[in-house]
């Protein structure tokens, strides 16, 4: 037995001082009490013999996934979505509890599908609930930003993990401002969606299929790797990613045989929408995280999603159960004359990016947008560092140059969140609270703290022969 070369001190500083006085280095833990009432559940889960291996398995399952873009198809075809079926962001919710932006998007979606002439007529349709149904995107291998409404005619990106053949889906991004996903449903919103359905979708399908045939599927994970070194965090900044996607698809778009004016408009639309790649980043993250679902004993979060009313998480070790609490208001900057009173609580499946270790978790790599979400560069560096305290590991593919190429913090651990009280940091857009308004700002938000102790309690319950 040798003299310890290093000591970690957690608790009384005096004891650490006494060790340092003997010329042995001490790494001191900045310990704080855990979230209230979690001590016994934390002990039970810490004692679960399945946990270390289950978490290692969940993390590596997630990290091994590569997401490739293989197709673009309408939701009716990809998911078998039928008229009257609507997907939405976040955990399950019914019309009565739906927020303004979700209602607005559903109303616009109903008009797009021709279920009503005028979006306003859709209110009665959803109130009666007889011919329509709502279901979370997450339940259909799909993710949707903001309101996340998907209807049968909408075209979806199809991402595939070549190793397993599993697929995930996401709609095409409409751009910023008055758009359906922010709850706007005016004529210009519907006109744009119809153009996306009639022109952009088929053109992208042809282009993606031709690209796959000539040079293989588009490596979305690889683009994410590079864009994270080009100032994108892949949630609120997707500029480099969008341009790299264009680089990969534009030859096939040009040679698609489609009308040159349509191709030019599509290129202009994509190039002019810095968020276009978000709708590929999100399903890439979901594809990776879904690989960790259902691993018993794992405390890793596999989804964070909001429907504008509730914030929900799902955890690898607790199956399909959602742990929900009230969605919070983001703290950030507002467009034009809008202010905090105009904003709806947090909404969208886009927190899947943070769940996978990018977005707010990779804030340090996107200094260009820290002001957009109301922060500073030191805040951004501190945020990414802080997230390492609540994650299981690092993503060796996705590294942050300014942090000496440290991998992004990956695999949110429910126990670490409860122990440290550090909540996942999410970068988000803000939708107007009133249906039809659209985007009012962008900022930073966290989940409601109480959902993590809830998830922890369920994990503790699930420990076989719980002894502590």
């Amino acid at each position, binding site marked *: *037995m*040798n*003299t*310890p*070369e*290093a*000591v*970690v*001190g*957690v*608790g*009384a500083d*005096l*004891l650490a001082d*006494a*060790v340092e*006085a*003997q010329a*042995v*280095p*001490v*790494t*001191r*833990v*900045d*310990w704080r*009490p*855990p979230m209230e009432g979690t*001590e*016994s559940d*934390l*002990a039970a889960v*810490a*004692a679960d013999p399945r946990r270390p291996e289950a978490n290692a398995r969940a993390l590596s399952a997630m990290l091994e996934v*590569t997401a490739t873009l293989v197709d673009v198809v309408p939701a009716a075809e990809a998911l078998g979505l039928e008229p009257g079926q609507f997907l939405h962001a976040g955990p399950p919710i019914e019309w009565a509890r739906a927020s303004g932006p979700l209602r607005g998007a559903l109303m616009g979606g109903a008009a797009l599908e021709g279920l009503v002439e005028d979006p306003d007529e859709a209110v009665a349709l959803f109130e009666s609930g007889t011919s329509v149904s709502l279901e979370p995107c997450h339940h259909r291998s799909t993710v949707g930003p903001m309101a996340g409404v998907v209807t049968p005619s909408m075209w979806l990106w199809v991402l595939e993990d070549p190793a397993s053949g599993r697929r995930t889906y996401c709609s095409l991004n409409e751009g910023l401002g008055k758009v359906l996903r922010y709850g706007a449903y005016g004529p210009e919103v519907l006109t744009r969606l119809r153009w996306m359905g009639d022109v952009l979708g088929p053109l992208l399908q042809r282009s993606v299929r031709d690209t796959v045939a000539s040079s293989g599927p588009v*490596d979305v*994970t*690889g683009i994410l*790797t*590079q864009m994270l*070194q080009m100032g994108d965090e892949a949630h609120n900044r997707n500029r480099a990613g969008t341009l790299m996607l264009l680089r990969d698809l534009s030859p096939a778009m040009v040679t698609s045989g489609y009308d040159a004016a349509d191709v030019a408009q599509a290129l202009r639309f994509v190039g002019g929408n810095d968020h276009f790649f978000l709708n590929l980043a999100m399903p890439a993250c979901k594809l990776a995280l879904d690989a960790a679902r259902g691993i018993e004993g794992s405390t890793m979060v596999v989804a964070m999603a909001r429907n504008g009313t509730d914030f929900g998480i799902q955890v690898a070790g607790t199956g399909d159960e959602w742990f929900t609490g009230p969605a919070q208001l983001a703290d950030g900057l507002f467009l034009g004359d809008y202010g905090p009173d105009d904003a709806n609580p947090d909404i969208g499946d886009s927190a899947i990016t943070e769940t996978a270790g990018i977005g707010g978790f990779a804030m340090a790599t996107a200094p260009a947008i820290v002001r957009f979400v109301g922060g500073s560069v030191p805040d951004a560096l*501190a945020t990414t*560092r802080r997230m*390492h*305290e609540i994650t299981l590991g690092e993503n*060796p*593919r996705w*590294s942050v140059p300014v*942090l*000496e*190429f*440290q*991998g992004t913090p990956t695999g949110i651990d429910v*126990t*670490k969140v409860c*122990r*440290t009280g*550090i909540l996942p940091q999410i970068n988000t857009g803000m939708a107007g609270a009133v249906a039809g308004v659209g985007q009012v700002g962008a900022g930073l938000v966290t989940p409601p703290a109480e959902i993590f102790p809830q998830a922890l309690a369920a994990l503790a319950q699930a420990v076989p022969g719980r*002894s*502590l």
Partner: protein
Amino acid sequence: MTGHVELRPGAYADSVTLLQVSRSVQGVPGVAAAQVAMATPLNVDVLTEMGFTVPTEAGPNDMVVAIRLTDGGDLDAVLAAVEAALRETGRRDGGPSEEAPPRTTASALRRTAVSGPGAVALVSVPGPSAFVEAMDALESGSDVMVFSDNVPVEQELALKRYAAGRGLLVMGPDCGTAVVGGLGLGFANVVSPGPVGIVAASGTGCQQVLALLDRAGVGVAHALGVGGRDLSAEVRGLATREAMRRLDEDNTVEVILLVSKPPAPDVADEIRSYAGGLSTPVELALLGAGHPDLTEATESLLRARGVAVPEWPVVGTAAAPSGGHLLRGLFVGGTLAGEARIIAESLLGAAVVRGAGHEFVDFGDDAYTAGRAHPMIDATLRLEHLARAGADPDTAVLLVDVVLGHGAEPDPGALLAPVIAGIGKPVVAAVVGTAADPQDLERQVRVLAEAGAEVHVSNARATRRAVELTREATR
């Protein structure tokens, strides 16, 4: 000559990093040639010239790992070296990632330059949170000392069962003292290296033995605390066994001394049988009625090793007894308080000690530490009691312990002396410390003696003397 070429789509590192990685892998035994690079056309040409066949689908976004082994080279080991080199170049010591303080023991251990067996975690958070921090350490392959008390016994058992399966040591919970290869953890005295290895289920009991061995010129290799419950019927000596195994493996340890309350008989049998299987002799110092006290146990260890038992010094003279009938022992060391009671009961009879109301108060007991630091750190409470007991006409004799070492109050003598000087009754003090302790043992003894105390280095001797003075006072 074996060639291995592997594509890693989506993996990326810059060229300087990959140059470093390639160089470092080229230096691994069993490697004839190695190249880790992004599959740019240029790099594909280089690899082809080196004789590797790069798959045609390789593109600039793919990382290529190309390795040629010499005869007998181990591909798995080389690939592990690639991973290590990629990690290594990705991280630099003192980078910005080091700036935010770690918030969990796991995070701190990840950042510590030395991890696994080279590192020890010292846990002193509130009891209900100690388990998770200690598990972090064990899962990282590090031993842990749990200073915290109020840890439920089933959690102690879970920790020790986990550790036992992995050859790890859990010192505690409620472990006040350990010396690991000369490094004191918790309240620990400064000892010279030597042939004795101690396993202690008692903190201040361990300190008393350390102090007496030091006085006799015998050094200590390690003193491993195991927590007061380790030899209970529930925990069954799980940590004691691991500690004895460690000491037995250490060639510098010639004798193992186990300091504990008398264990349950079946646990004692198990431990004795385990000890019998070791190549190092194991001596027992059991704290209980009918057993030798700690000083006697230490003396017998010395004699067995052929070391002369020194004269345990006594410095200063206690005031002559002047009335009163109570022996009042005010202790900071729980084991020292317990030893004093056992000795007093053996001299006076248990019924007499209880009937007369003689006191042996442990100020480290939970009743006195709720919401405040241990009395070895915060002397206030005992000083107040001492002044009050000194002024009480019922008090015949005062008995105090003074425990030195790392972590303890920097100058306890200076705090006690003015109080003792104001007491007209006999005061007997046991100073438990070693010559190299930071408080300066000789000075502490002198200050207390000058204040009017009779100062011993053996708690047992001090107690016997206090009992004698009590008898004189009541005669």
